Structures are given as structure tokens and as C-alpha cells.
């Protein structure tokens, strides 16, 4: 009845990316914003994989490896930064980060 084509995957990844983007804009918790970044990177992975499968090329799948590695590196640094802030003020909300403004 329904044939799942590449378009479906691309639409799904676009929706995932938008969810991540708007989450980034709306949410105030640093950890949630962090999850939104991961969601966006995974949407990118889905796009690469489905396009790669569609074209029958290997390039997109190789790209996914690199994006995954970068995402892992970002997790390491980002969590370290969040932990170092959390130790100081026992809250991960970005609302308390209002010392510098102007």
C-alpha cells in the first residue's frame, strides 16, 4: 500500500532537525539544549545515509562516521563545561548565566 521511499527518510530527518533547532531556541536547560544538538547531528546522519543509499554511493556513509566522531567529541567537551558550571551554581539552566550582558 505505502511504499517507503527515500523522500520519507529525508522528510523525517528534516522534521528531526527542525525539532532540534526549535528546541534549541525555546528550552532554557543547558542539558536539553545539548540533547537538541545531538538530535540535529543525528538528523544529518539520517540524511546522509538515505541519500547515500539512494545514489548507491559510499560517500555519504563515510561522512556519517565523521559526523559521529565529531558528535562524540562535542559530548566530551560539552558535558565537561556543563559539569564545571553545575558545580558552581547547582543548576544547569542558562537563566542563571546572566552576569555578562549589555
Amino acid at each position, binding site marked *: 500500500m505505502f511504499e517507503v521511499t527515500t523522500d520519507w527518510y*529525508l522528510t523525517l530527518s528534516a522534521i528531526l*532537525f527542525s525539532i*532540534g*533547532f526549535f528546541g*534549541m531556541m525555546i528550552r532554557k536547560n*543547558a542539558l536539553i*539544549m*545539548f540533547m537538541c*544538538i545531538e538530535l*540535529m*547531528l543525528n*538528523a*544529518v546522519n539520517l*540524511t*546522509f545515509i*538515505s*541519500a547515500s543509499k539512494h*545514489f548507491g*554511493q559510499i*560517500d*555519504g556513509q*563515510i*561522512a556519517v562516521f*565523521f*559526523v559521529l566522531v*565529531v558528535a562524540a*567529541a*562535542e559530548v566530551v*567537551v*560539552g558535558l*565537561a*563545561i*556543563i559539569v*564545571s*558550571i553545575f558545580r*558552581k551554581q547547582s543548576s544547569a539552566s*542558562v537563566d542563571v*548565566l546572566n*552576569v*555578562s*550582558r*549589555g
Partner: protein
Amino acid sequence: MNGISEILGINFVVIGPTLALLFTTLVLLFCTITISTPVYVKKYISFVGILITLFTIFLKFGLFARDGITSYFSEKILLDEFSLVGNVLIGLVLLLTFNSFWKTSEVIDNKTTEALILILMSASGFLLMVDAENFIMLFIGLEIGSISLYALAGLNRGDQLSNEASLKYFLLGSLASCILIYGVALLYVSLSISGVYETSIAISFIGPDNVPLTSLIGLIMILVGLLFKVAAAPFQAWAPDVYQGSPTGYVGYMAAVAKASSFIVLARLSAISLRFILDKFDLFFTAIVILSVLAGALFATNQTDIKRLIAYSGVIQSGFILSGISFGVYGISASIFYLITYIIQLIGVFTVFSIISGQLSSDFKISNLSGLFKENKFLTVTFSIFMLGIAGLPLTSGFVSKFILITNLWSYEKYLIVTVLMLTTVAGFYFYLRPIWVAAIEKTDNSIGKIKISISDKVLLGFMAALTIYFGLLPNTLVNITRWMVENYL
């Protein structure tokens, strides 16, 4: 054996600078973990590493003179004029900021090696980024560079402003990277390409009028990701907080290296990938340029913190540089001239700040400068030269770069942008001259005492101030270099 590596284009001279910096960081890591090394040895190791990097950049010129524009590593790494100039710029930034980031790393408690490793790694990432032909390669280089910078911004962990700067830089920078890589993915989906030259070939193949909307959106997302890094409005929100919060000794390096490499990549995209469809992006670029200069000038006028002031001035300068990049090849050469002179002034300004307010300080009010002239003539004079250079007073390089840029825009008939840029320049004198007024002319009771300047700082500041004046009086050499850079793309 030789045949295969030639077919794949494996050539270690091309990535020599990156490898040299990587090797230096490994040696530093080894020295810290295994044998307890005195601090000055680390200083010599990193300095020698930077010198070797400069030498390998010199070797790339030899390779370029022999082979011309060539791709290496099966079309992943590109050796062209842009990558050469980008390499030289990043090497120059490393050399000019070495003194101030070394001193900062020395006083930051127990983190000397971490700081050095982060700085050298970020430079190696940005070197990879300016060399990249493939967009995935560009993304990796950008991330290696940026992730190190996020950590560097928050290195002074006792300071709350530093933590805050680090988190803001991290969240917004990662968002920019996500947007960039999704743009790459969209380009791959629509045209099955992911390279700088592949893009222009594909566009000329299908015709500029038939470019699918998806790939246009993809290209715009790539540009947005890069514009985030250079803090062009409306993507400038992170810049003031990061400049204010990070340890002062590092800000010069952080700002200069990100700006230099991102603008080189933008220039290459505009000269090669977008060359057939540049007029489709006219509206986008015009909007960004006008927003940048207006928002920067608007916010800069009522700043009390001088590092924030420089950050907003950086937004204005991004608008200026972008205006040249976005409208054609001669504009690109003018923009590169602007970029080089601006980076020298930027590094100079932050070197002065780190001398006056201490290496680790995060807050630095304009009123802290009051009465600087009384005891510190040299610092005030160099500081004024840099500020006037950024403002664009005649006899400094800032004036020449603005002049070349605006005459080029005039010949492209961009009258609206020319008007806005001129007005911003005039308005800019108000907030650029205010710190000089506070430092040199305004009468005050509690002036700053005599500040000790080391010989190396004196030489560096004198050199950068001399360059600012020199390019203002005799710009021919640099103009010829920037002309040479673009003459293959006419």
C-alpha cells in the same frame, strides 16, 4: 608503491603544517605525562613547533610553484592561493599571539600544558579547514578548531564569567556547526556532491537557472554556519559574551584565528563554488552586511566594557569584509587586504589589554584605562594606533583597506551598501575615539601606575603598530599579494 600514493594524491607536504602542530602537541603531552619538565622547556618546545610549522608552510609555496592548483588525498585537500594565504595568516596569528598566550598559560594554575595543547590543536584544525576541498573535511577542521576554542574560553575555571563564556560559545558554536553540516547534507542529497570544485562543476553542468531549491538552501546553510564563526549579525550574539568572559590573553588568538580561517573559506566558496550563481545570493549577503554594520554600530555606542566594544566592532568589521567577498573577485582581493590589516590591529589591541589588566582578567571597563598616558606613553601610543586603525583614520592601514573596499563596491554599483558603510565609518569614530580620550586626554585623579612591559611585548607591539602605519602609507606590496591571490579566478 609509488604509483598508488600518486594516484590517491598522498602528499605529506600539503598537510605539513597540521602535522607539525600535531607532533608538537604530542611532544608536549609526552613531556608532561612521563618526565617532569620545567616550564621554560615547554615554552621552547611550543615555540620551535610554531617555527617548524612556518617552515612547512614555506615548503607548500614550493609545491605550489611547481604544480599549481592541485587536489590531494583523492580530492580532499586543496592547494591553491586561498589555502596558502590562509596558512600564512594562521601562522602569523600564532607567531604574533605566542607571547600573550604563553604568559596567560604560565599564570593559569596547573593548566599550562592543557592551554598550549588546546591552542596548537585549534590552529591545526583551522589549518585543515582552510586547506579543505571537501565539505566534510571542512567540517572536521572547523570542529577540531572550534571545540578546542570552547574549552579554551572556559579554562579559567574559578571565574564565573569564563564558565559562562565557555557554555555560550559551546552551545551557539555547536548550533552553527549543525547548521553547516546539514547544509552539506542537503547539497549531497540534491546534487550528490560534497566538494568546492564539484559544486561549481555541477552548477555549470545543470545551468545556473536550474539549480534546485534544496541545494540553494544547503549552500545558504553552509554560509550561515561560517558566518556564525565570524560573528556577522544576526549571528553575533555569542561574540561579546565570549570576548568579555574569556581570559584576556587568549581572546586575541581566539578572535583572530576563527575570523581569518572562516573568511578565507568564505572567499574561496564565493570565488569558486558560487561563481555562476553569485547573483542569486545578492539579497542574502546585502541583508547580512547591512544588519552587521548597523547592529554592531548600534550596540557598540553604549558599551562600558572595552572587550565588548571590540567584539561589536568585530561585528562591524565582519560586515565590511563580507561586503567585498560577496560581490565578485576584485572585492575578494580587497576583503583579504582588509582581513590581514584588521587581524594585525585586533591582536595588537588585545595584547595591550592583557598587559594592562592582567592575563586572566575577564572584566575590563573603559574607565580602567583612565590616566594611562601619564606613566605609560608607549602603551597609549600603540593602543591609539590600533584603535585608529580599526576606526579607519588616514595614515593607518584601516583607512587604506576601507578605501580600496569601498571603491571596489562603487565599481560594482552597490550604492546602498556603500552609503551604509560610509555612514557607519563616520559614526564609528565616536566609540573608537572614546577609549583613547579616556586613556590619553581626560583628566583623572587615580591614574594607572607604571606598568612593566617585557622586551618581547615591546618588540611585538612596536612591530604591529609599525605594520599598521606601514600598510597605511605604502600598501602596494600587500595589494599586489591580494591581487595575485585572485587573478586565477577572474
